[in-house]
């Protein structure tokens, strides 16, 4: 039983890991076909992973409603929004528009989801600004550099900024394309080295936390 519960999953990881790492070095149509199929398989399995997450959300709010805990009315609103959207989506076959005409699902997307999402992220502008005021006060040389770079990029992204500081557009582009990209490149190289090390650890069974806890 220990083989089925503990060792077989590790064996599956080892075989699939080596197989798909090796696939990259085999430029044969069959190898490409295997990659295409495997990508499709991953998408399908990922769909089932969504069920796990959604069920957890369903359960959490259902418990809140049945026990009538504080704020259970909001959980009802969540349920109503979710079930209403699902009903509209299934009715419209998951399409926002049919022959150019907006479906009920498209209506939910355009007049509910887009405004809610847009506004939710838009209000972050205010909070980012207030957070910046607290944290950006140039208390050190590094903080001053950060502040100056942020101000130049902000000014360089809008016509008014370029009007007030004529060079800000060019300097902003230079910061983003040269200085920023060099840092991103360095971080990317570092993160990639870490990802490769982790991948090897997973394939060879050194890292097993993804299997979860449990008795065996």
């Amino acid at each position, binding site marked *: 039983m220990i083989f089925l519960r503990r060792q077989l999953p590790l064996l599956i990881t080892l075989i699939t890991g080596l197989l798909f*790492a090796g696939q990259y070095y085999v430029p044969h149509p069959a190898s490409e076909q295997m990659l295409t199929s495997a990508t499709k398989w991953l998408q399908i399995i990922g769909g089932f*992973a969504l069920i796990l997450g959604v069920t957890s959300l369903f359960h959490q709010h259902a418990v809140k409603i049945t026990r009538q805990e504080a704020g259970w009315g909001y959980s009802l609103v969540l349920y109503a929004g979710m079930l209403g959207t699902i009903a509209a989506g299934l009715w419209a076959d998951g399409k926002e528009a049919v022959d150019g005409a907006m479906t009920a699902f498209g209506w939910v997307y355009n007049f509910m989801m887009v405004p*809610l999402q847009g506004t939710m992220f838009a209000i972050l502008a205010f909070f980012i600004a207030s957070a910046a005021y607290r944290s950006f006060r140039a208390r050190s040389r590094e903080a001053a550099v950060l502040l100056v*770079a942020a101000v130049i990029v902000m000014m360089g992204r809008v016509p008014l900024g370029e009007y007030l500081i004529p060079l800000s557009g060019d300097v902003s582009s230079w910061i*983003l394309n040269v200085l920023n990209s060099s840092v991103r490149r*360095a971080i990317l190289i*570092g993160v*990639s080295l870490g990802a*490769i090390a982790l991948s090897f650890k997973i394939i060879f069974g050194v890292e097993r936390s993804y299997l979860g806890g449990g008795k065996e």
Partner: protein
Amino acid sequence: MTMPFELIVGAWVATGLTLLIFTFLYKDNPLFKLAEHLYVGVSVGYIIVKTYDTVIVHLVVKPIIDNGEVALLVPVAIGMLMLTRYVPKAAWMSRYAFAFIVGMGAGLAIPRTISSFILKQIEDTVRPLLSLAGPDGVTFSMNLLNPASNLNALIILFGVGSVLFYFFFSIEHSGAGKAVARTGVIFLMISFGAGFGYTVMARMSLLIGRLTDLIEFSDASYGRPTIWLSVLIIGTLIVLGRRTKPTPPEV
């Protein structure tokens, strides 16, 4: 020209939801929480429908029925194994699904990460410091505005090297190493500042979008929802504010 009914209702709903979220700028309140929960509900519902349509309908059902691709039942079975998490005695079977996904992800990641994120990035960083000019001459272009100029190539090389050195802890950052690491920090700070500024402006762009909608929906052809709903929401906030008794400070 008369406005279609669904557009008018949509304008009222969109305006109402936008204003409900904006009430958070005043303080956390029941109206905001209502819109917040509705947002989560609608988003989850949307993802469920899209996943159902993309995965179940277009990747599983149609290929099996139309093309007889019964092999697709294998990933379905692997996916179903994930659901054994809900049966304590069979929960260990979900490990097969996770093992497959994680193993495949790790296998796919190794060669592609080395190729795209390490070798390609190094190739773009280590560029010739001089350019060919004419049949037998070389030049060093100083144009900062051209990311491909020789001066910028030198700056990028130094930036990448100093930032990598800053994160390299196997040798002590002292003497010349300290100066290089300090330069790396300056590069990092500039990048964080640029990232911050860029994010702020992206949020501002969203804010402008929402305000543009509110201005458009204040038009008489929509029934002026912006004005009426603003009055209604401000009134509700005042009523809610009066009903909420101030709590005495804890001693």
